[in-house]
């Protein structure tokens, strides 16, 4: 096995997070044909128990998705997200940057405080800048951890995002009833989220 390929394999294996191509190039030296090496390494691991995958703009090894069931008993099941949190996450992911008012408009319901907190706590969303509109509301966006958790290389890989854009479903459209936004019952939602 070629020395550069061995080093690339070891680097990706030792790194706690996906490594971007810039950093890999830096560590492998200028003469390395990084795209070719990555292709070769990905080929070596195709069909194995570990795969080389492009995630959040970088490269990393992950266990093969089809082994999920066999590996599962090993791990504690992560806390389930409430329906409100899943929907809110989807709205932020597909409509970002998006304000709280827009999230509420799309979902047709006020956002309980716990919902955004939960997503923030997971490290999947973050506020980023403010909208230059009255009240200068915060913009919400997803994070690189979101991409990493959901196994996406970039936001372009969001399931069905292109179809949604083409069918106009990433545009909020005109207001309905001047936006109804009575806050959801927070306690109720929290209880559901824990369930």
């Amino acid at each position, binding site marked *: 096995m070629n020395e550069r390929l061995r080093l690339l394999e070891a680097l990706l294996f*030792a790194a706690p997070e996906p490594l971007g191509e810039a950093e890999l190039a830096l560590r492998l030296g200028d003469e390395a044909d990084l795209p070719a090496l990555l292709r070769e390494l990905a080929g070596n691991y195709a069909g194995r128990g570990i795969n080389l995958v492009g995630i959040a703009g970088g490269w990393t090894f992950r266990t*093969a998705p089809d082994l999920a069931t066999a590996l*599962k008993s090993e791990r504690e099941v*992560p806390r389930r997200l409430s329906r409100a949190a899943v929907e809110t996450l989807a709205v932020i992911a597909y409509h970002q940057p998006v304000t709280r008012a827009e999230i509420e408009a799309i979902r*047709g319901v006020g956002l309980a405080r716990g919902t955004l907190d939960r997503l923030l706590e997971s490290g999947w969303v973050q506020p980023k800048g403010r909208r230059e509109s009255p009240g200068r509301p915060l913009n919400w966006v997803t994070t690189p951890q979101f991409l990493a958790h959901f196994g996406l290389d970039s936001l372009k890989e969001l*399931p069905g995002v292109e179809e*949604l854009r083409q069918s106009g479903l990433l545009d909020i459209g*005109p207001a309905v009833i001047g936006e109804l936004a009575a806050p959801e019952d927070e306690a109720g939602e929290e209880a559901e989220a824990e369930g």
Partner: protein
Amino acid sequence: MSERGEQLVLDLDGYEGPIDLLLALAREQKVDLARISILQLADQYLAFIGEQRRLQLEVAADYLVMAAWLAYLKSRLLLPEPPEDEGGPSAVELAEALAHRLRLLEAMQRAGASLMARPLLGRDVFQHGAPEGLATIDQPVFELSLYELLKSYGENHRRQHGQVLTILPSAYQSLSDALEHLAQFIGRVPDWRELMAFLPEALRDGPLYRSALAATFAATLELAKAGRVELHQERAFGPLYLRSGSRASEAEAGPE
């Protein structure tokens, strides 16, 4: 209320707001959302809310607001549109806006489901359990120029040997030396010339440069006060120019 009623009627707690409820009701129409009948949907919604209230179940305010709005929309959809445009959206436009919101929410609900169905990190796929990490070793690079080194030695030397080396008064150009030196030029300088040009040749580069410059400068001030020279500077810290003053010759004649 009867047990039968409770069993039959869905609780509003199962819905994420009025649009979500409308979406659930729309799904019962079993038609594509693009061809949904808003009128029929409004009827279903009003009936559902009516049933909730009949059973004295609590109905949150936003569901009631939606009910009122749908009743209004329904009446506008059924009545002929007013002939003149009132500026607001038409009933058809309002219905379309609502239909768009339904599609929007449905799209997001599907998107959320597809996201959660992906192989998730820590649930379906796993990263390396014990990454060794990529060590980055901080290599200190000390920054020091030869100038700083020499200056430091000089300062130390001065501190230790300063007493012996301090007094070298004869090496200074005093104010009176400078006055004497400048006086030679007065009356012979009709045009502006830079102050630097008047520094004694011997002092222009040596260690006494600064004291010579200071003394010469002070001397020009003295002479300017006496009207024997004129000073001119274009900007702060710019070069200083001087030329002979109006009383140059008169003063030259008199003793200083």
